[in-house]
């Protein structure tokens, strides 16, 4: 399918093809003319701020490609996973990581089960899940923050070569998710399911299972982001996730993955999160307020959505 679009693009270059390239050039030009933008410290700052949103965004990418809209419970899933991560530190880092990833995969995977087999509306379901997670976490934990029961987590705060471990993890996970999407049977099935679920079902594809696996993997990725977040903050409560839900959605959309499903990639999400982080960074260095940074982030997302939409609907009635 991508070969077809590539061919068409060569034959008839489209006006919208120029836009991303032009935008990138403008961005780099503005960046280069901004003092301290090209310094090593600044590149580190961009990457660090991007890493956690990026890892969660990779998880969300799978959900979006599968045509199951978005999860509105990312913040809560990450917060609960981080609480688990810190609570089981006494068992050692490896065990804690495994427990956390399994917990995260279960939390989001269960929702995927209902979305995949039950065809539940993912938005409604994840709002419900968000309430349930908040309620359970507060009810069980009494509303207090979880403190680490061991010190193994400090390994996650390491900065080999000056870059936080989370940045390397983001890059590795992007490659891994991209490989799963491109090369595995699951990846193919996920795109087909996301493109047209009734057709995929009619063709006998295991739609329920594909969606469930996508959500399980997403939950595992949320849990990895959670482990880093818990390690960085050294304490976790239900509010740890903050604005992560919408940050991750913004990153996926800014990368050009359409919300309708059936398209998108891990690379795009990485690009999206880097784009937002870079622009925010330029605005910060140039002395603009937080408000201006948030506003520009919204406008970038809007612009990308419109360009992607125009590209995909071109020539259709």
């Amino acid at each position, binding site marked *: 399918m991508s070969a077809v679009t590539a061919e068409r693009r060569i034959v008839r270059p489209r006006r919208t093809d120029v836009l991303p390239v032009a935008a990138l050039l403008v961005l780099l030009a503005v960046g280069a003319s901004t003092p301290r933008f090209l310094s090593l410290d600044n590149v580190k700052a961009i990457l660090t701020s991007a890493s956690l949103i990026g890892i969660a965004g990779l998880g969300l990418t799978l959900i979006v490609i599968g045509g199951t809209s978005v999860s509105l419970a990312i913040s809560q899933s990450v917060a609960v996973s981080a609480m688990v991560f810190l609570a089981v530190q006494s068992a050692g880092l490896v065990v804690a990581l495994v427990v956390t990833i399994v917990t995260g995969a279960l939390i989001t995977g269960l929702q995927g089960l209902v979305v995949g087999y039950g065809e*539940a509306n993912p938005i409604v379901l994840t709002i419900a899940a968000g309430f349930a997670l908040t309620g359970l976490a507060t009810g069980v934990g009494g509303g207090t923050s979880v403190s680490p029961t061991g010190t193994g987590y400090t390994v996650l705060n390491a900065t080999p070569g000056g870059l936080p471990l989370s940045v390397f993890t983001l890059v590795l996970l992007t490659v891994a998710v991209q490989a799963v999407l491109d090369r595995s049977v699951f990846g193919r099935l996920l795109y087909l399911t996301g493109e047209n679920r009734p057709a995929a079902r009619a063709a006998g594809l295991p739609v329920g299972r594909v969606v469930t696996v996508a959500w399980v993997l997403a939950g595992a990725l949320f849990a990895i982001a959670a482990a880093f977040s818990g390690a960085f903050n050294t304490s976790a409560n239900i509010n740890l996730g903050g604005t992560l839900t919408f940050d991750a959605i913004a990153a996926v959309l800014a990368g050009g993955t359409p*919300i309708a499903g059936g398209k998108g990639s891990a690379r795009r999400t990485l690009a999206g999160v880097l784009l937002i982080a870079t622009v925010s960074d330029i605005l910060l260095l140039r002395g603009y307020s937080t408000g201006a940074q948030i506003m520009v982030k919204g406008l970038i997302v*809007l612009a990308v959505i419109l360009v992607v939409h125009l590209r995909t609907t071109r020539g259709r009635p």
Partner: protein
Amino acid sequence: MSRFARPEVLVPGVALGATLLVFAALPLRTGQLLTPFDAYNALQVLARLGPLILALGLTMIAGEFDLSVVGTYAFGGMLAVTYGQDHWALGLLLALAAGVAVGVLQGVVVARFRISSMPVTLATYITLLGLTSSLSGGLSKTFDNADVTLWVDRPVLQVFSPRSLLALVVFLVLALVLAGSRWGREIRAIGGDRRASRVSGVRDDRLLVGLFATSGLLAAGGGALLNFSLGSANPDPGVQPLILAAVAALLGGVSLAGGRGSVLGLLAGALTIAFLAQVVTVAALPTYVSQLFYALLLAGVVAVDAPGLRRGVLRLRKVRR
């Protein structure tokens, strides 16, 4: 199927009925009789969230999902406080105008490009939050007109306030307008099957622009009145109001798939949320109980609306027979 088994009647009926029963049973727990003040407080919650519920709910009936309402809520509220210090009406008017402008812009984009409204309104939401924060330098802004603050929450007939009365009037007027004109049917039609309704002569593009403008107007007006009442403007209300508005709309029998629901259903959903909040307060329940209760109610909504789950249940019944 009988009229009462339809989700748009069943869901709000059960949700509001159960909530009012629990509310009425409150004296059993507290040992004190209910007072008009309890109803007043519940209606104050309705005043706070009602406009937002209408703003989001109307777009949901039309098959759209206007996430930007909480951004417009914050932006309108900030404008009203910033420019309404001397003349509250000026601030309110500015807020309403901004709300309509935001709504029209979004409506035009959604209708013109036939693009899914959720990502567009998410982007607008983020943009508006940024804009609101820029207006106030990221800080809360106090509203010094204490007369207005006192007036909007003044008890009327013991249980109402000008704010809650206004919210109720808006609900009723919209209910009458949509029931008495072809708009109500057309909104459901474009929510159910956009292409079919277009073919049968519904001007869906105009209707969408009108809907998003109404949504923006309601959200901005709601934000302005809320901030007059609070005596301050918060640049970031968080996502909780949005989530609660979505919950109220869903409990009001509106489906996220579109094509189903009514303004009276939205009112029932709004009252459910409002009285639930008061139940939690009066019974001094820990907040996590209400969170779990919302989760349970929404799980019910999910079950009613999930075709796969329904098929599974039917299959189980057949096996038993």
